[in-house]
């Protein structure tokens, strides 16, 4: 369980780190390349792109993985479950950068390609957690639910999904954090995001640019993780603790 202290620590630390980085950059003498990379709303644009990439990819992960997880735990689809898990595993086991490179050949350059790679990479935790959450429910409860006259969709909506919520949310949280990370690779496919800052920093050998990109990525990941932990706290059904 998350305590109040832990709840407040993360945003406080993040704020401190961001402030320190900001002061360091503002007070440092920047050369023209650095200014080119960091000024004129560039950083804000990349940050926003990164958030967009994360949000959109996570949205598609949910749209794909949640129904798939539900379907694969139904009696009629049970034989297909191992195959689906193997596929999802494959998506995650393939190095994200390699996957991205391959997809560029197929889909061309752009944010769309990056999104496909990110979704493939993050489907597994949501899928496997959804399946685990649904499978962990005491069969006696499902028997009782059916026995008192719930229809199969009713059992799913009123008993199975609510009880699986904690595990599903944990999977979503993992996917979100993964997506913030893999989102930095989108720049290789021309998808924008904070990866632009990092690659620019490396190729132009400007540490400050690299550090800004990296710090923002890390802070975004931690912030998203923190927000997701709040959602878990809020959305987990009471009575389960």
């Amino acid at each position: 369980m998350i305590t109040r202290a832990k709840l407040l620590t993360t945003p406080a630390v993040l704020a401190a780190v961001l402030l320190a980085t900001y002061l360091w950059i503002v007070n440092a003498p920047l050369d023209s390349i650095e200014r080119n990379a960091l000024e004129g709303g560039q950083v804000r644009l990349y940050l926003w792109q990164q958030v967009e990439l994360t949000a959109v990819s996570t949205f598609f992960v949910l749209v794909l993985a949640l129904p798939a997880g539900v379907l694969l735990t139904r009696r009629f689809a049970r034989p297909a479950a191992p195959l689906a898990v193997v596929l999802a595993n494959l998506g995650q086991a393939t190095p994200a950068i390699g996957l991205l490179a391959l997809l560029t050949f197929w889909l061309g350059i752009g944010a769309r390609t990056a999104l496909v790679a990110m979704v493939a990479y993050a489907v597994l935790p949501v899928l496997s957690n959804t399946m685990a959450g649904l499978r962990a429910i005491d069969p006696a409860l499902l028997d009782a639910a059916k026995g008192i006259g719930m229809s199969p969709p009713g059992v799913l909506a009123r008993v199975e999904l609510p009880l699986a919520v904690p595990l599903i949310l944990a999977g979503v949280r993992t996917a979100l954090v993964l997506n913030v990370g893999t989102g930095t690779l989108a720049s290789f496919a021309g998808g924008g995001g904070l990866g632009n800052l990092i690659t620019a920093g490396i190729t132009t050998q400007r540490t400050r640019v690299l550090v800004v990109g990296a710090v923002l990525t890390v802070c975004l990941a931690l912030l998203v993780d923190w927000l997701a932990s709040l959602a878990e706290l809020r959305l987990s059904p009471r009575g389960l603790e």
Partner: protein
Amino acid sequence: MADVTGATIELEQLTKRYPGSANPAVDSVSMEIAAGETVVLVGPSGCGKSTTLRMVNRLIEPSSGRIRIGGEDVTDIDPVKLRRRIGYAIQSSGLFPHLTVAENIAQVPRMLGWGKQRIRDRVEEMLDLVGLDPREFHDRYPRRLSGGQQQRVGVARALAADPPVLLMDEPFGAVDPITRDHLQDELIRLQHELHKTIVFVTHDFDEAIKLGDRIAVLREQSRIAQFDTPEAILTNPADDFVSGFVGAGAALKRLNLTRVRDVGVAEYPAVSADEPLQVIFNRLRIGGVSELMVLDRHRRPYKWLRRGDLARARGSLARAGTPVTHTVSRDATLRDALEAVLTDSSGRVAITGRRGEYQGVVDMETLLNSVHELLEADRLAALEGQEELIGHQQPHTRQELEGQ
């Protein structure tokens, strides 16, 4: 039984065959259960009793055979709609842990589309019915309840939509013996008020005797070894399988089936402790009894007073006599009464009414006689039942037997 709310259940050659197994799990069970009757299916584990029960509400679809409830053939109707008309309670209660007690109970009425206020009233009523204080338990989560309380809520949920039929699958199997005993008593009380048709599955024969109007002893593949009243099964088991299941001490178990009020409570002279001492003294001297029951102000048994007790205590009633330690209510079983008589030095026990007031005594002789009568009557009834079954039915038999 003026207001029977239950419905008849008829099972006709009900069979369940699982693919890939040579023998059916349930082989052609036929059974007729009257409205308002409690029938207990009892048998060793794996005998198919649960499967049989779960075919009644079609949680398990029968391979062949018919099910009729209240005369209506329900074998082919929508199972979801069917189950909403049948109460269902299982072992370890099956309460939904993410819903409060009230929400759990409200499930079936909600599915049936009852109005909010009606559901709220009904939930209160059900909590009252199963002996849980609505104010205290309404908003609790199941994890915060004891096993016995969970089971009560489970029964309340099963009864919430007032179904005519209640199916119970070892509902008290997972609670401790004392709680189980309480829950059984509660169920008997409930059934006294509600007159549902109850089908109850257990592997505990004592539970079956206690709860069942009739008991179906099942052997493997749910074949009915004997389907009869507890009395008949105890006194006249159909075969070795049934007597093996009844176990030792059938006569003692028989005592559990009869209440003190059914054997006749003998009057016994009693006197109030408020009476003048002289009156008590005279009653003892002239009354023709050597012992008197002294009652307290509320007419409850207080102490036994023998001749000479008063003299020994120098005329003080407070010090004289033997205080009454055991009393038995009119609703107690004969077994309880026997226990009390055996522990009492005078060989008799005081019987009390609803508020503990004195009503008479039962002594060893009464008990022995009534047990013999009971066993004999059971034996004859069972014999008669067998004759009817075999088909050698003689019109006089009943009168002749009753004449004896």
